[in-house]
């Protein structure tokens, strides 16, 4: 019994620590003023050193500061896009599970439609339609990432509806809306939360890829994808740090978020919490 409590507490502590680190990176990126990034040509293309841990880019800007700022931009896009996406997933998943057969078939068709075009191409198209920039990127990523979570939630709701207590509720004369709010939604909460956190790395990676291709944020905005696409030009000149370090920071961030999602799932999911 004691070991169980310890494990639960450990997982919880780790989750909080991870969340704090992520929040710290986010805040740091927001707090860095634009002037700090400006840089000068005198310092252009320096290798990593103590004063510039990530080195400087071809315009003499400090890459550590740019990377941090880029990560916080990515996180903003990631949070907003995965919130919207998860919201769509819940609505669509519930509608498909409790709607008529025709609604279900229609939604399935719609999911096949979104999955039928490569996401990179679809995000490019949406970004093209809305004029490049933050808005196109957000809408594009939000519109393409809800499918698998919607399927999960549909399966979950279908399974919940078969439960005896839902049947009893119905016999007691509760309305569908009452059952939805009091029985279904609370059960979906953990699924939703974990799905939301696990959507986030996907959203960030897509944001970076699309920015890398030149469709996302404008070039003056600090974003990891833009830093990496600039670094391509100086790769053969030997500026390895501008390609390696910002990318590594992005991967680290994604791994941290994945870890956080795993911990939250362990705390919320009764199966693994009792292991």
């Amino acid at each position: 019994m004691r070991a169980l409590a310890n494990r639960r507490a450990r997982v919880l502590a780790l989750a909080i620590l991870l969340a704090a680190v992520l929040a710290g990176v986010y805040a740091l990126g927001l707090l860095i003023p634009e002037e700090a990034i400006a840089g000068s040509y005198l310092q252009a293309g320096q290798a990593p050193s103590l004063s510039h841990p990530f080195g400087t880019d071809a315009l003499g800007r400090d890459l550590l500061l740019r990377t941090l700022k880029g990560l916080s931009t990515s996180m903003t896009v990631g949070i907003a896009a995965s919130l919207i996406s998860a919201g769509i997933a819940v609505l669509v998943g519930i509608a498909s599970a409790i709607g008529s057969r025709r609604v279900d078939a229609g939604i399935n068709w719609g999911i096949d439609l979104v999955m039928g075009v490569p996401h990179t191409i679809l995000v490019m198209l949406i970004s093209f339609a809305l004029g490049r920039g933050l808005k196109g990127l957000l809408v594009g990523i939000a519109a393409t990432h809800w499918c698998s979570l919607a399927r999960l939630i549909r399966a979950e709701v279908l399974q919940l509806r078969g439960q005896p207590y839902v049947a009893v509720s119905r016999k007691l004369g509760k309305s569908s809306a009452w059952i939805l709010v009091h029985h279904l939604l609370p059960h979906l909460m953990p699924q939703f939360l974990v799905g939301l956190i696990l959507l986030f790395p996907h959203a960030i990676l897509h944001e970076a890829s699309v920015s890398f291709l030149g469709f996302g944020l404008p070039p003056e905005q600090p974003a990891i994808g833009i830093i990496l696409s600039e670094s391509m030009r100086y790769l053969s000149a030997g500026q390895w740090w501008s390609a390696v370090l910002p990318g590594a920071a992005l991967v680290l961030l994604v791994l941290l978020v994945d870890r956080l999602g795993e911990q939250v799932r362990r705390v919320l999911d009764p199966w693994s919490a009792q292991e």
Partner: protein
Amino acid sequence: MKGTVGRLACLLAGNLVKILSLLLAVSLIAFVLVTASPVDPVQQYILGLGTAVSPEQRAQIEAYWGVDQPPVQRYLSWLSSVLHGDLGVSSLYRRPVAEILAERFGNSLALMVSAWVLSGLLGFGVGCAMGLFRDRWPDRLLKKVCYVLSSVPTFWLGLLLLLIFSVWLKWFPTGFSSPIGLTQAEVTLGQRIYHLILPAVTLSFLSFSNIALHTRQKVIDVENSEYALFARARGEGALTRLFRHDLRNVLLPALTLQFSSFAELFGGSVLAENVFSYPGLGSAAAAAGLGGDVPLLLGITLFSALFVCAGNLIANLLYGVVDPRIREVEA
């Protein structure tokens, strides 16, 4: 035997109807998105001409594009010409879109097929190894590697490979599908393969961890089953069990998964081709989107949807026809 053919035909017909409806919807959505764009395709076309245009010529071009017509009519006339095989003329490359698609798809296909085979073989092999060594150190190590790889963006991996193997070690060229300065006819097959290796390796890492983790889980499921336990009791070693029991159960789902990953494969090829300046469909897609080349963008979108649908169709057919369990249940 007749039953199999009949069921295959039935499955095929149902899937084809669905694919047609999906393609129609994709064409409509793509057209709406492109029409909503603030980028003016006529302006881009005229910019691409590179010469001054008189107002009369401009009016002529606008009439050809149908700018004054309502969008619905424009969509219908575009759709009917697409169905007749005319995808329009690319404003970026000044050539018919169909011609560009055909030429570029050849390059992309070589890239995607080699990456697909490579990731399938490697992922399947590693997955089987992880399953057999489950919960011991090789499994734990490989699982960590897979998780990390699935968090690495394709284009960054491409940049790293480019940096290590082309810039530092100088083993491979830094890009393109053939040496610079040679015409198409002069390029040998060996040179093409040499230029293909790095992009293909980059692209193969995209679905590698997915297939490996999936295979691992399936192998563990089989190994935990009663017949595998009995085989173990009979004294069969790990390799014998792998060939007698695991492979038969694991190969088909893995192959199905691999066929249904065509969307990621295509999306990843856009990134890999851009990193390595490889002249395939993906780099054309990015160029078309950035240069406001509407006919080419629409053509590539339709083509990519067709490609993904073909993969899903094969996956469905594999599952419905080849798998003896599903066949028995339905019969």
